[in-house]
């Protein structure tokens, strides 16, 4: 008998089904992974199992069954839940030590030598023992997550539920989080349910469940799953049949193709599932821009750009150059200073120190900026669109803000809608649409005035695999057809692959700035960008 069994769990929020008929089994000491995009139903299922949300179906844990949060109450001392979001369970004015004491007390654990020993072990595993006096607010993102994890572990839960513990965390801390988890499940026999947005982490899980729009589409060990899709994965080749799709680095086809096979990643499962279901995956296209421009050789040059918030230095003397027609990837964990940097470039934050030259003009006053606004396109982190206006209304609004002629705007809008594949969503409200559609139409809004440079802040965060691949196709096409420069931030280290040049930020400092080829040359042993960046984090601690 399984130690944990979920039977046909369905969670609905306001008549919208978040997850449907999810079943799974797990044994003591297993790590069960949930992989999928935002809104795929991972969190909803986790909340149901943790006994904090109502659901249909039943959960059997340690021989006891519950069907509602109320029935789960007696089992709560055995369950530990760490919700999504960095440092969400922490209090920024309490120190590391006070946190552990607080979580011990609210769990009503009596003081004992074995508790003290366990507590010390947790601190050491998390590498936090030198920082017990430091307030949580002054810890880095990775340290915060480690502290959250050991706080969740203090009552020795037998069922650990971690909702995206590694999202936005630097690669080294991510490895450390997995190490803690591995040790705990071995020594305590804990079942861990872990969700993640990073496919690479699947290798560390005993069993993987893939989530796609409210359903579990596949499950098994990582290697089992990869085996299943290996026969459909090819080196990129043009598609000839309908049940075929080509992404940045693969071609997936259900019908046999005359092309060399390529070892897939778990992402392949999402594409093949979509192909099997006969989903229409729109083909991304970009036609030439209407107004030809000469892109200057250096689009943006920052010298010693610095931003402080009180004592905290968000960006510390950063030099950066964005050349004409290149895709520059600004990488780093959450809190590394990526967004702050972009906001300084855009003039949304005043620059505390340093010089900035945009499109050959040194920027000093707000007035100089306004003249440049017409050449810049920007997509912010939350795809800021007006939620009470339809896609069409939004686009028309932005077009008139850029004083585009109505006829021309109309034509451009319908062309972008067709090329970027959101034509059929034109009269819907953004809040009713999948994140991937919102992402593409935000980019369309930023392209209406045909800018020379495009700033994109975390455009792929939380977006599903298919939409992400389409997004990168769109970006590369834009570079090719329009020749414009694109600065893009991301915390997915693997996306570095698609950029021309990479700048890596770590806690407000620039630690790497090189082209993709050079980085590969520098670290010939590294298998992926993940590993390359790991060097930068290990080196300078």
């Amino acid at each position, binding site marked *: 008998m399984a130690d944990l069994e979920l039977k046909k769990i369905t969670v609905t929020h306001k008549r919208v089904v978040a997850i449907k008929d999810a079943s799974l089994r797990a044994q003591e000491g297993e790590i069960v992974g949930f992989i999928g995009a935002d809104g795929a139903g991972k969190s909803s299922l986790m909340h149901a199992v943790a006994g904090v949300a109502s659901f249909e179906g039943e959960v059997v844990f340690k021989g006891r069954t519950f069907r509602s949060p109320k029935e789960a109450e007696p089992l709560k001392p055995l369950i530990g839940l760490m919700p999504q979001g960095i440092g969400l369970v922490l209090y920024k004015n309490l120190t590391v030590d006070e946190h552990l004491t607080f979580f011990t007390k609210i769990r009503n654990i009596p003081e004992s030598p074995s508790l003290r020993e366990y507590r010390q072990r947790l601190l050491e595993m998390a590498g936090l023992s030198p920082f017990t006096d430091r307030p949580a607010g002054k810890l880095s993102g990775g340290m915060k997550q480690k502290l959250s994890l050991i706080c969740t572990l203090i009552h020795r839960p037998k069922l650990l539920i971690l909702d995206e513990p590694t999202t936005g965390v630097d690669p080294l801390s991510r490895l450390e989080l997995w190490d803690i988890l591995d040790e705990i499940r071995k020594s305590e026999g804990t079942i861990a349910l872990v969700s993640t947005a990073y496919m690479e982490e699947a290798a560390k899980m005993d069993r993987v469940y893939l989530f796609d729009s409210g359903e579990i589409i596949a499950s098994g060990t990582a290697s089992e799953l990869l085996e299943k899709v290996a026969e459909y994965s090819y080196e990129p080749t043009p598609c000839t049949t309908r049940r075929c799709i080509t992404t940045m680095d693969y071609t997936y086809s259900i019908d046999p193709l005359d092309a060399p096979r390529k070892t897939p990643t778990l992402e392949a499962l999402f594409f093949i599932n979509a192909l099997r279901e006969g989903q229409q995956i729109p083909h991304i296209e970009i036609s030439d821009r209407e107004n030809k421009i000469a892109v200057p050789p250096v689009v943006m040059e920052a010298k010693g750009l610095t931003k402080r918030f009180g004592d905290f230095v968000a960006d510390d003397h950063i030099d950066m150059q964005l050349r004409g027609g290149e895709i520059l990837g600004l990488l780093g964990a959450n809190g590394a200073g990526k967004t702050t940097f972009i906001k300084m470039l855009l003039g949304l934050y005043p620059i505390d120190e340093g010089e900035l030259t945009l499109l050959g003009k040194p920027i000093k006053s707000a007035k100089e900026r306004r003249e440049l*606004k017409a050449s810049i396109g920007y997509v912010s982190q939350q795809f*800021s669109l007006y939620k009470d206006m339809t896609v069409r209304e939004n686009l028309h609004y932005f077009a008139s803000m850029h004083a585009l002629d109505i006829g021309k705007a109309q034509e451009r809008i319908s062309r972008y809608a067709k090329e970027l594949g959101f034509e059929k969503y034109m009269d819907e409200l953004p809040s009713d649409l999948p994140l991937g559609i919102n992402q593409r139409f935000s980019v369309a809004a930023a392209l209406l005035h045909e800018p020379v440079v495009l700033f994109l802040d975390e455009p792929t965060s939380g977006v599903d695999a298919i939409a992400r691949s389409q997004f990168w196709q769109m970006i590369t096409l834009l570079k090719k057809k329009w020749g414009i420069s694109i600065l893009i931030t991301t915390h997915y280290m693997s996306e570095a692959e698609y950029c021309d040049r990479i700048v890596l930020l770590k806690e407000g400092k620039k630690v790497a700035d090189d082209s993709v080829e050079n980085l590969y040359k520098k670290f010939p042993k590294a298998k992926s960008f993940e590993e390359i960046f790991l060097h930068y984090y290990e080196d300078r601690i």
Partner: protein
Amino acid sequence: MKIFLALITKELIGFFRSWGLVAVVLYSFTLDIYIAGAGIEMQAKNISVGYVDETGGGMSQKILSRLHMPEFQKPVMFNSREALSRSIYNRETMVGIIFESDFEKNLQKYKRAEINLLLDSISATQSFQALQYLQNILLEYADLKYPVKLKIHKLFNPNATTSQFMAMAEMLSVITLLGVILTAAVFVREKENGTWEIMLLTPVNPKLIILAKSFSQVIIVMAGVVMATGIVLFGAFDVPINGSLFAFFLLSFFYAFTSAGIGLFVAAVSKSMLQVAQLSILIMMPLIFLSGAWTPIHAMHPLLQDLSLISPLRYYIEGSESIFFRGTSFVDLWSYFAGVILLGSVLYFYGFRKIGRLF
């Protein structure tokens, strides 16, 4: 101009799509004003009366028979003074009358007699109005040597109903409050949704954005004013219009900009809609108190009277009152227009500068 129109259209679409906001505006401009007019009653009405009659009838019953609807309920008899006191204590009776046993005798013999009157004066206005009624009734029984009677000519508001004035004052307060909150909301909603930055990055002159956004809310407020005037003031309360309706709408238009100016200031310092609500109430309350909407200005402390000169609502209320009830001609309204426009431009300019600094 095209951009200006696009901005306004966008705000209006946004307004009509948010049902909650539309409902609040509709409620405020109709039911809320109606309730204020119909519900706040200053006159004595439906007052409960209890009495103890130890005389055995006669004069006492004659007096009691004069207490009738709508001012008084039918007097209820109590057997003892204690029972009457208890009833007043329990808020069942508001006015208690005690005719002592020698009342009839004193009246006949000495032509002088006393009635004991117990008043629940918690709702002071109502109980003193009741007292006044009783005195008037007794006056008719008193045998005066030199009877002088008042012949009253009620001007401007012949029925002396308070509901008309209350409804109008409430409408003006609603205009103030909504003008502030709606204007602040269009900016703060952008801050909350994260569209603020996108707005900053459009190559449009910030001045134009601020002007268009606040103007769009002035349009909504003006639509509300027209609706409230037609449906509630004229429809439900038969408020007379002795002056020019156009003058009133023009004055309202200037005033709407005044409250939009306060709204701009609120928007500049608030980060969320909750802060907007709190701050608006905080700013609005003194403005409304000082305006004379609830207390006549001449009854205020002299210092407050001086302060009321800087409440733009004061000029607006006095101006509107003159238009509706007094029928003051357009030319003679200049002082009210001057007050509203002067204070309005100061407030609007200040708010404009304040929010402009965020761009």
